[in-house]
């Protein structure tokens, strides 16, 4: 799965959980500062991503995912099959 595809899927998840318009969800955006996605919504997004991609995002790693791009890169590196 390409980074663009991960971004598109992740944007759907963020939209469903936090109500952020899909079009606003671009790699450079900060979840907290730009999209108003708080730490609890981040946990819900992480668990949804874990279910979707069969990966594990520990709390310590989750705290370092500040931007949408951080999350996309993390999911890509976590071994999402193409």
């Amino acid at each position: 799965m390409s980074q663009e595809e991960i971004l598109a899927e992740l944007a759907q998840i963020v939209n469903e959980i936090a109500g952020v318009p899909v079009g606003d969800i671009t790699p450079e955006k900060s979840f907290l500062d730009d999209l108003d996605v708080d730490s609890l919504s981040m946990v819900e997004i992480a668990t949804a991503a874990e279910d979707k991609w069969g990966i594990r995002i520990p709390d310590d790693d989750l705290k370092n995912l500040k931007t949408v791009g951080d999350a996309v890169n993390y999911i890509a590196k976590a071994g999402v099959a193409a």
Partner: protein
Amino acid sequence: MKTPPITHSRIVAIGEHRPAATLSNDDLAARGVDTSDEWIRTRTGIQRRHIAGPDETVISMGADAAAKALANAGLSGNDIDLVVLATCSIARPIPGGSARIASGIGAAGVGAFDVNAACGGFCYALSVASDAIRVGNAQRAVVIGSEKLTDFIDWPDRGTSILFGDGAAAVVVERSDEPGVGPVAWGSDGDNFATVCIPDGDWAIRMDGPAVFRWATTKMAPVAARACELAGVELSDLAAFVPHQANVRIIDAMVRALKLPDSVVVARDIATTGNTSAASVPLALASLVNAGTVASGELALLLAFGAGLTYAGQVVRVP
């Protein structure tokens, strides 16, 4: 040797004690907590919480709730033979509070013990008391959840100070010809005790909010489903779901994960009560009963969870 035949048990009445003093979100900000009404509401669903005064203790609040439950049942202390107190915030660990509550409600001399399973405590205590009645070790019990958590709150720590409140609620449980308290689904996770605890050398409750949130939102819905399965009840049979009142967003996530039918009323007492640990489930049930939102004899699913980590849940018939 002989043992008596096993019967059923049921909850016959409920009583509550909510401290008169309240603390709004704006009050917290005025106390110097770095927060705002909007911040607290959006992250927790809490608008205000009740705060015990200097003369209100785990024991006094618990005794008042127990006396009210007995009065609501048309009973007195002479009519009970077991008192079980769920609490994790009693001022000193020795002695526990149950015997003093028994004396305070006119039931001096009865069996009495405390249960500390933190926020999970009430459902543990209810299960143990219910089973004591079912096997004949007691005829009628008072089960109390009472907490004065503000004794263990470091007000500048907004990760905890915005969440917790004080209060107590109690139920009267007695023998019954029909099932009224279902089998308990319970468990624990001691590996993750540090996510919510009073750390070594500290005096206040500290919490890793996101870690607890993740645990609750991913692990508790299956426990709720298991409690229903054990009781032979479908979710659509329930009149109410009364989860521990930790955070409205945990409650909402559990409701989604369970695919709870819209017909089931969900307790959201947290808005005006905050998190009262072992008192939260019975206080939330009392709110529904007192408002007439649920009727006597209807089914409610109780689910308590928290520090330990511990959890317990069961289906009950509403008193």
